[in-house]
């Protein structure tokens, strides 16, 4: 009886799956068009899944093995089920292979089940608690159903009451796996996730690449085109697809500094709200951690309703520091930061509701090319005693030193002076732009004002065109990132180096000699825009090593470094939370017992020095190096000249 019913059951479930898939695809197609090579994406998909995605999942070995067994077991089982039970291929070995795959899947499902016995808070509950049971039922049922075909039990097995039990198991198992896949059950992640990997908006991220620069916004407002993302349908279709791929594992939530600080942001909830938006409905079925301080169940929206009018509150979008910890951690490679900035663009460019000091800062950037409204003609006052070569005079230099807005800040000026001292000691042929330099546009862009970013960037590129230089070096990782990764879209491609890499080169070439540093323990804080955005983890450590420093690493360092709280305009928008992100980071630093924390970013310096004393001292690597320089000046010739 079962054998007769199975092919029809399978066919029925597959048809329903197909119908669900078509509906889901139509939901994604509500989004804006995106340039995606469909064929190449589909061809690359298996590799992206098996290699790139696996690398991310594999950071949690136990979960990685669990998923390989469960997913691998399921995919193989499903293929064999179609052959053995669907098309009735009568082959004992095929059936025995199916037995093996169901056993593997069952083993994986047992691990999933055990993980769900006492799940960590980052995991979503709800239907996700049902999934391991469904997996067990699926694997067990098909194991038993296949026994006769494998020649282990007689053909007549599975009749009477047992047949009904097995039938119930088949319906439950196929229901979760196939129906749920097409109709927004937990298994949706397999279907949407596979396509998301194929049609990812940043294909450069696969194969060990990196793509972190924000995408350029078309500023054309003709024909009442809305700037930025107002409604879910304003996202590109592959962004919507990406939201649907979320498995609600909460790794983003565990890493998000704003969530930890009790600010009203939870990256996982945000992505789930986007799913609510694209499909229409409310967040009543969401079974994970809420946005801190906000109740779940009140949000509702649809693809054509404005997101910030009922689905997501504005302060949620402004709490993000754009540190990219969530993106780095996401096993589905979802692009949270892109989505947040897209929605911020609407709020800033169309609604004019940038919170806190946002309005004032953007006005300053427009009127004075720097965020604090300083006189643009006072940009070189910090270097009045430094006798710096200016590009307008020399026209040409090996190194263009991009000073950044640190020029206006007295604390940052100490870093700039230290770096100038280093370059002079190493006899680097460098020059600065002086008053011709402008803010790089990072802050305006993260605040959603792509118009001001593009205006600043275009004018900077015009200035840079006038001079000849080999490379740009800057002490500001934000300027570093923007010049390196975001100016190329506007026609400015340069070799850009962070000062730590440049100093490391000088040390390696023997142009700088450093004394061994004595004194207490040192730890190093990876700036987000240097580390996660640009993969620069080694050069700062190498420089510290060259001074004989043995680093006491923090638990969260390298690609898992916790943000200082200073990125993405967060100090400007200043969304209240229960704690300050900088305080939490300082606790990380204190836990190493370090007396000095080395940093490579003036924003990080400002944020960490904002923590009340007593606390470890904060020093930029340039300052530490400048204090350890071996004076290699030639005293003999110097005296002769004198």
């Amino acid at each position, binding site marked *: 009886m079962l054998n007769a019913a199975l092919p029809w059951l399978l066919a029925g479930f597959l048809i329903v799956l197909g119908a669900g898939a078509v509906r889901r695809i139509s939901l994604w197609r509500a989004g804006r068009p995106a340039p995606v090579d469909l064929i190449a994406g589909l061809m690359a998909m298996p590799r992206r899944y098996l290699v790139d995605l696996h690398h991310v999942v594999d950071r949690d070995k136990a979960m990685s093995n669990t998923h390989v067994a469960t997913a691998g077991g399921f995919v193989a089982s499903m293929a064999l089920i179609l052959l053995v039970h669907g098309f009735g291929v009568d082959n004992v070995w095929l059936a025995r292979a199916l037995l093996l795959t169901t056993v593997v899947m069952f083993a994986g499902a047992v691990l999933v089940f055990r993980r769900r016995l006492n799940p960590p808070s980052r995991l979503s509950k709800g239907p996700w608690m049902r999934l391991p049971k469904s997996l067990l039922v699926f694997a067990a049922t098909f194991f038993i159903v296949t026994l006769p075909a494998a020649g282990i039990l007689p053909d007549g097995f599975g009749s009477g009451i047992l047949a009904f039990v097995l039938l119930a198991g088949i319906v439950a198992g196929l229901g979760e796996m196939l129906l749920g896949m097409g109709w927004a059950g937990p298994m949706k992640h397999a279907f949407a996730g596979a396509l998301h990997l194929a049609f990812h908006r940043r294909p450069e991220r696969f194969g060990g690449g990196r793509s972190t620069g924000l995408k350029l916004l078309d500023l054309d407002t003709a024909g009442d085109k809305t700037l930025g993302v107002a409604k879910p349908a304003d996202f590109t279709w592959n962004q919507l697809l990406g939201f649907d791929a979320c498995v609600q594992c909460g790794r983003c939530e565990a890493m998000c500094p704003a969530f930890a600080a009790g600010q009203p942001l939870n990256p996982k909830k945000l992505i789930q709200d986007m799913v609510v938006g694209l499909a229409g409905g409310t967040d009543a079925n969401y079974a994970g951690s809420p946005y801190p301080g906000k109740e779940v169940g009140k949000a509702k929206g649809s693809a054509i309703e404005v997101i910030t009018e009922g689905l997501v509150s504005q302060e949620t979008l402004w709490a993000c520091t754009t540190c990219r910890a969530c993106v780095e951690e996401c096993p589905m490679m979802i692009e949270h930061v892109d989505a947040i900035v897209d929605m911020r663009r609407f709020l800033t460019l169309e609604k004019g509701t940038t919170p806190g000091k946002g309005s004032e800062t953007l006005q300053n950037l427009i009127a004075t090319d720097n965020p604090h*409204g300083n006189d643009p003609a006072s940009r070189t006052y910090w270097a009045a005693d430094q006798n710096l070569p200016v590009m307008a005079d020399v026209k040409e230099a090996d190194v263009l030193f991009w000073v950044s807005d640190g020029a206006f800040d007295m604390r940052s000026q100490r870093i700039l002076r230290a770096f100038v001292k280093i370059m002079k000691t190493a006899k680097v042929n460098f020059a600065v732009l002086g008053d011709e330099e402008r803010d790089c546009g990072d802050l305006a862009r993260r605040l959603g004002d792509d118009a001001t970013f593009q205006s600043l960037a275009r004018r900077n590129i015009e200035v840079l065109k006038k001079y000849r230089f080999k490379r740009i070096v800057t002490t500001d990782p934000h300027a570093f990132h923007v010049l390196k990764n975001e100016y190329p879209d506007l026609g400015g491609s340069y070799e850009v180096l962070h000062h730590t890499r440049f100093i490391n080169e000088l040390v390696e070439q023997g142009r700088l000699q450093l004394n061994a540093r004595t004194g207490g323990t040192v730890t190093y804080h990876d700036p987000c825009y240097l580390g996660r955005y640009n993969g620069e983890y080694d050069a700062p450590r190498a420089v510290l090593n060259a001074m004989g420093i043995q680093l006491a690493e923090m638990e969260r360092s390298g690609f898992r470094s916790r943000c200082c709280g200073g990125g993405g305009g967060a100090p400007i928008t200043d969304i209240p939370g229960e704690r300050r992100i900088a305080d939490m980071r300082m606790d990380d630093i204190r836990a190493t017992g370090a007396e000095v924390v080395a940093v490579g970013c003036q924003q990080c310096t400002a944020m960490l020095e904002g923590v009340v004393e007593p606390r470890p001292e904060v020093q930029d690597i340039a300052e530490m190096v400048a204090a350890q320089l071996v004076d290699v000046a030639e005293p003999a010739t110097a005296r002769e000249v004198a």
Partner: protein
Amino acid sequence: MSLDKSLKVRVLVSVGQHPKSGRERRADQDSRALELALGMPGFSVGLLHAGSESPALREYLGMGVKAIDVLKQPSSADVVPALVQALRNDSPDLVLCGTRAETGEASGMTPYRVANALGWPLVPAVVSISRGSDGTYEVLQALPRGQRRLLKVRTPFVATVDPAAAEARQSAFGPAQRGQLQAVAVASVADPAANDLEFSPARKRPKRIAAARKATTAAERFKAATVKSASKGGQVLVKETAAEKASAILNLLVAEGVIAVDSPS
């Protein structure tokens, strides 16, 4: 007066100048005037600018207004006749503007001259306007040191907005680009004085600090330097003749050293 009738408020806006960079921008006080107008329910808000058609005017559009009427005037023109003509054609209930412009003469005389030409009263240093019960308006006026005075004013009137009024909302790029700068043709009247003017950057006026007489502590000196003493002396001249009033003013100016008077020889 029926409340159903849509009331018209016209905000006079000028092209401002950033104090540090000297770049054109929306003028701070004018944008506060627009903010005040946008916060008044039941009014249709229109913007009027006389002068050059600067792209900086779009910053006002970015606050959420669809269009600005631009009365194109050469830089040597007196903008007051053009404004008055446009306002007469338009006949608004209320005209708002900043206290003084950030460029040009920046004398603060424009609103007075406009009000004078229209024959309307002028209320200076306004921070908020709300509708009263009997067709009048309750106007809150800013006085020095945070004091406020409530006035009842009947429309139409001209009001200048105090720098203490609510800060202007953010100007958004999208609406600023979509808004219209509508050119309105008006005659221009040359300002004969314009050619003889010489412009130099404004300086902050020195503040008079009262010296502490017998200060023994820093707190007393601080208080003496910051707290404005209540006006002492002075006289109220109401019934006196114009000549007597004028001579009282002259005497004060001489006593304060504002005007040097040659000693009679």
